[in-house]
């Protein structure tokens, strides 16, 4: 007797009592809003990624527009949350216990 199917536990198995309407549409809209949010709040990362791509006329053009987009979002204050969070993280990285010498003196 071949069952052809092993029962197994997956982390994505949840009880079924949930809204039944259009799960794919709901997921797609969630992903779309996430992407849009990151597009406006994280232009820094997009610019950095384009700069890392192999040089070509297309890459140069994209890098120009990414730079423009980064400036535009920064002028509206949309880049501030990421920049401020990153600054706090760097401060946390640099923090030392009292008796420990700074890392550049080790």
């Amino acid at each position, binding site marked *: *007797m*071949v*069952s*052809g*199917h*092993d029962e*197994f*536990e*997956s*982390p*994505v*198995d*949840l*009880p*079924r009592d*949930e*809204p*039944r309407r259009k*799960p*794919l*549409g*709901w*997921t*797609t*809209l*969630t*992903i*779309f*809003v*996430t*992407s*849009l*949010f*990151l597009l406006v*709040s*994280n232009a820094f*990362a*997009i610019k950095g*990624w384009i700069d890392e791509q192999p040089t070509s006329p297309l890459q140069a053009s994209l890098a120009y527009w990414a730079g423009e987009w980064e400036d535009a979002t920064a002028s509206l204050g949309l880049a501030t*949350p*990421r*920049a401020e*969070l*990153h600054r706090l*993280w760097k401060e*946390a*990285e640099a*923090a*030392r*216990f009292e*008796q*420990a*010498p700074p*890392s550049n003196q*080790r």
Partner: protein
Amino acid sequence: MLFPTLTFGLFFLAVYALVWTVGARNNEWRKILLLVASWVFYGAWDWRFVALLIASAFINWSLGQLIAHAKARSEEGEPAGQAKALVTLGVVANLTILGFFKYFDFFLSEIAPLVTNLGFARDLPLLQIVLPVGVSFFTFQGMSYMIDVYRGRTRPASLLDITLLMSFFPHLVAGPIVRASHLVPQFQRSPKMDRGMAAMALLLIIWGLFKKAVIASELSTQFVDPVFFDPSAYGSADLVFAAYGYAVQIYCDFSAYSDMAIGLAALLGYRFPRNFDQPYRAASLQDFWRRWHMSLSGWLRDYLYIGLGGNRGGLFFICRNLVITMVLGGIWHGAKWTFLIWGGLHGLILTAERVWRELKPSWMPAMPRPIAVLLTFHIVVLGWIFFRAETFDGAIAFIKGITAWHGAATIVTPLGVALVLLGLSMHFGPPRLMQGLAMRLRFVPAPLLGLMTGSAILIIDAMRFEGVAPFIYYQF
């Protein structure tokens, strides 16, 4: 193409859109799309190895078909034995692929001094073989399919299904090791998604991103790598911190990959098995292996340990089978003596646990659970030192440095301590906390959930270390 990069993010968005639009009309086209996408994903490392992946899938599919026919003929009265010969041939073929790419150069470099001393040769032909990413994972998957067909645990599948099983990009390079009996039945029907599955998928991807990009990367670059590179330059406290740090790093690195793989597959409508279950809360090494890399430990149990005789034949044979299984499990990770010693250490401790369970006087109380957890964790950490060290001598120097107990902590920082404690505390929270959260999130309106997801990714991106190191398990 690494998961936590914008390149992969764009690739995945394209695959998601194609699979749920073009692929939604016909399940065969969906699978073809996923297969091509998986080859593009794999080809981003090295296009030449896509051919190896296809060849390996073809070999396993062909042998699966032949084994099924041989079994059918033997049931009709023809002599048995042909199916067994075919499955043996298949195992040898898979191990040959694995052995050539993974162990050939190591084997030659190890026997070279011996051969030279015997006066037979001076220079053996080292080939500088490039290791195909994920070769250990996809050969094990192919082998398990063939053996399952032989054992009657799964039906022979189509070439498309087997090729996709072995190539499917979420699990291709670092698992979980998804068996044919898990995934092929899912491939044979149109995948379904519900909100709970999607919410859990998004949570797993974000949680995995945090564990990898923030915890594992920070611990690796700031603490673990420098100390393991030159243990003699650091005092005992730094060495202890680096050992704990590596225990957290490898968990956060590998479980992050598994979480993201499971989440990505779920967004495409497929279920993958759980691969980690709070391993550092284990109260014995046997318990640890039920929680750590569960798809590999299950594979080793079903296809190696049981094949060796499993629990049959008395205590001596059980212990022998345990040691052999764990030593081979260690070598599966790579051609290095340190992996062999890591596997051997686990095998010996598992044996000691087994013997103790058999011989422990009934009047003797069991060890209190907190002490057992602490002891098990430190045995695991000891094993990780061998696993991480480049050489056996390096591991011994590291351990000697700890036991010498000299030198103040110079690299330990408040952030490092916080990350190690966070990485350990993950093992002692409610086991199904994330599922509980996903059950609430599935009722959240999509625009709000999108903003929450985007905010979480933005926070992680602000904290992440510059650049993304490959996952530790990519090298296996």
